[in-house]
């Protein structure tokens, strides 16, 4: 329950009322004022001073000053009348409550509207600041653009002027030439006949500034050196496996790919212990195949067979290895082995596509000749015919097929 303050004092002039309320030791920050046009409340706990003003006052201009233990409240009057009393005492409780509530409401509204107007003002200021900044930046940009435009126009003008000067130069050249020609025509001289022709062609010069070098057509052009003697320079490129261009950022990926390829080509089989003493190259079936081919070419058939054996052990799915080993066996007269190998090669060479036609033809020929050497001419003929179907234009093949046919006929008739 607040303590009502009653020992206040008040004075008035024609236009203002001054109320002095003792603060009874309360500190300035703790004093709370609420004033509307008919109600005034000063609250400093635990004390409370309230006044129901007898006449309305101008609440916007009401002020309060706190100091020296008193609060002096200045209330400008709405109408300059002399106040008999400061407060209305005749209000009953209900009325008082009403007035209080009204006052509170009004006060709150006032505060609200104040804050709103403050916010609006702030926003307006911010907008203004932004607009001003934008204006400045735009001016800056325009300035730069204008400078560039000026440069451009200047250059265009220079270009146009230069073009004009070129044209004029060409015209004067043409006129001069015409003049020269006319002069020369007046005094005919035989050796200048050729030059005249050159000049008249030049007189048709188009006005695009080619003229200035025509002036030098009078003196003979310096003789050009003869064309160089043709030569070839052989070039060797830094080796690169990929057909694409070299990019540094792609190099790690490429290295990885190459490594994986190399690993894939290596031994997948289990005889790792035996192969440990082999060198890196000797594990590569392709290298071994090359070795085998070299041996075959040089006549070392056993060496070739060895190479192919190892290669097949490492990677048994390469038909070329079997086919070549068949050829070696043929030379070594191991006919059964030759047939085996050739058959395996043919098996591996399925599906039958044009790409492996040559390989299949070769394998068939080898098996065919093995059969013939074993005197199994019927099978041999079959193989030769298959080879001929794959490679119809091979004359040697046709001749061999014919020979076998003859032998077959001969043996057939022989047995009858």
């Amino acid at each position, binding site marked *: 329950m607040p303590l009502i303050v009653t020992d206040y004092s008040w004075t008035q002039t024609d236009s203002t009322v001054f109320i002095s309320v003792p603060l009874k030791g309360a500190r300035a920050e703790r004093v709370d004022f609420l004033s509307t046009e008919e109600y005034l409340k000063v609250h400093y706990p635990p004390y409370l001073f309230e006044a129901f003003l007898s006449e309305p006052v101008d609440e916007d201009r009401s002020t309060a000053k706190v100091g020296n233990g008193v609060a002096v409240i200045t209330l400008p009057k709405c109408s300059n009348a002399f106040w008999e009393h400061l407060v209305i005492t005749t209000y009953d409780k209900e009325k008082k409550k009403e007035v209080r509530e009204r006052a509170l409401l009004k006060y709150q509204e006032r505060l609200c509207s104040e804050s709103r107007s403050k916010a609006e003002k702030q926003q307006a200021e911010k907008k203004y600041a932004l607009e001003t900044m934008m204006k400045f930046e735009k001016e800056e940009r325009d300035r730069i653009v204008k400078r560039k435009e000026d440069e451009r126009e200047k250059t265009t003008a220079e270009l146009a002027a230069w073009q004009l000067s070129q044209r004029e130069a060409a015209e004067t050249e043409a006129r001069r030439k015409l003049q020269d020609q006319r002069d020369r025509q007046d005094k005919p001289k035989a050796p200048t006949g050729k030059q005249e022709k050159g000049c008249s062609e030049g007189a048709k010069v188009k006005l695009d500034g080619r003229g200035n070098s025509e002036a030098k057509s009078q003196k003979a052009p310096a003789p050009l050196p003869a064309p160089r003697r043709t030569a070839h320079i052989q*070039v060797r490129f*830094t080796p690169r496996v990929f057909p694409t261009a*070299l990019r540094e950022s792609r190099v790690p990926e490429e290295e990885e790919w190459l490594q994986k390829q190399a690993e894939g080509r290596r031994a997948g089989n289990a005889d790792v212990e035996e192969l440990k003493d082999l060198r890196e190259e000797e594990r590569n079936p392709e290298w071994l195949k090359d070795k085998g081919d070299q041996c075959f070419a040089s006549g070392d058939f056993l060496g070739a067979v060895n190479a192919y054996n190892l290669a097949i052990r490492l990677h048994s799915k390469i038909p070329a290895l079997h086919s070549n080993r068949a050829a070696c066996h043929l030379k070594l007269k191991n006919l059964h082995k030759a047939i085996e190998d050739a058959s395996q090669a043919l098996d591996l060479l399925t599906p039958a596509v044009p790409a492996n036609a040559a390989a299949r033809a070769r394998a068939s020929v080898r098996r065919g000749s093995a059969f013939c050497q074993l005197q199994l001419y019927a099978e041999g003929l079959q193989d030769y015919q298959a080879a001929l179907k794959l490679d119809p234009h091979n004359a040697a093949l046709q001749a061999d097929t014919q020979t076998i046919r003859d032998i077959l006929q001969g043996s057939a008739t022989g047995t009858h």
Partner: protein
Amino acid sequence: MSSPLDKPQIISHFQKSLNYTVFDSKWIPCSAKFVCLGNYARGTGVMQIYEVQQGEAQLIKEQEFPKPIKCGTFGATSLQQRHLATGDFGGNLNIWNLEVSGTPVFSVKAHKEIINSIDGVGGLGIGDGAPEIVTGSRDGTVKVWDTRQKDSPVANMEPGEGETKRDCWTVALGHAFNDQDRCVCAGYDNGDIKLFDLRNMSLRWETNIKNGVCCVEFDRKDINMNKLVATSLEGKFHVFDMRTQHPTKGFSSVSEKAHKSTIWQVKHLPQNRDIFMTTGGAGNLNLWKYEYPSQRSKTDSDDLAVGVAGSVTLLQNATVSTQPIASLDWSPDKKGLCVCSGFDQTVRVLIVTKLSQV
């Protein structure tokens, strides 16, 4: 505020949108005209000649060809004739008289595959000696042609029989300071740069810059070779100092990474050999200046001279497109005027200002 505007500015004078893919654009010497080479969508080649008039390009002439044209040069023609030498997708080298349509002045089936790059020297009053044209092709060969000798090239740099071929992407001529000396520099897609001496008909130097070489250019064709700029994939370019060759280390170089993508072209300013412009795969242009070191060569531990490379500073950059700028050509007559064309089917004429004050 003033210092950024004191640098050379790259200003777009105008741009022209074309209805074909343009591969190359070159100024016609001693005129305000340029020629654009490319191919139509229907697979035929096209050459258009434009004249710069009052801030825009007027089409003067257009001609269509059976095969698309990849590159062209005026380097080997005289100032009076101004014939254009072109290389096309079928490997044909043709020299055209631009005034006359129809048959070319010179024609030869130079290569089996597309001619990627062409260069000429000895014409336009630059350099002494016979005019020669060099072409580099996807078939891995670089051939030097003299128009007086039609059936066979004057020099042929090719890989040996059965050896693998790499695409030659770019060629450049230089070191033509008298009528016998010439050097051809070729860049390949596997990063090889090879320098051939045509006087001795031998390989003078080779190196590998670890990225496919997109463009090489000497700073001047008609002097003792001074500098060579080679640009490559992955946004790198190298500037080689060509005055001092070490027997094993070759030429020394400085390299820069710029553009964040392939550097398609490099072209030196005709009026100042230390300024060059590089064009990038993202449609940007960088203007560079090379500064020489205090001493261009020093002796190494074996008492042999080895070159010292200088430094390169970026003067200005500009982004004019979103697609690669495949070709750039400085006007030999007006300093700072250049024409560039990109794969966005647009040809642009740009002005670079304040180059005299650099």
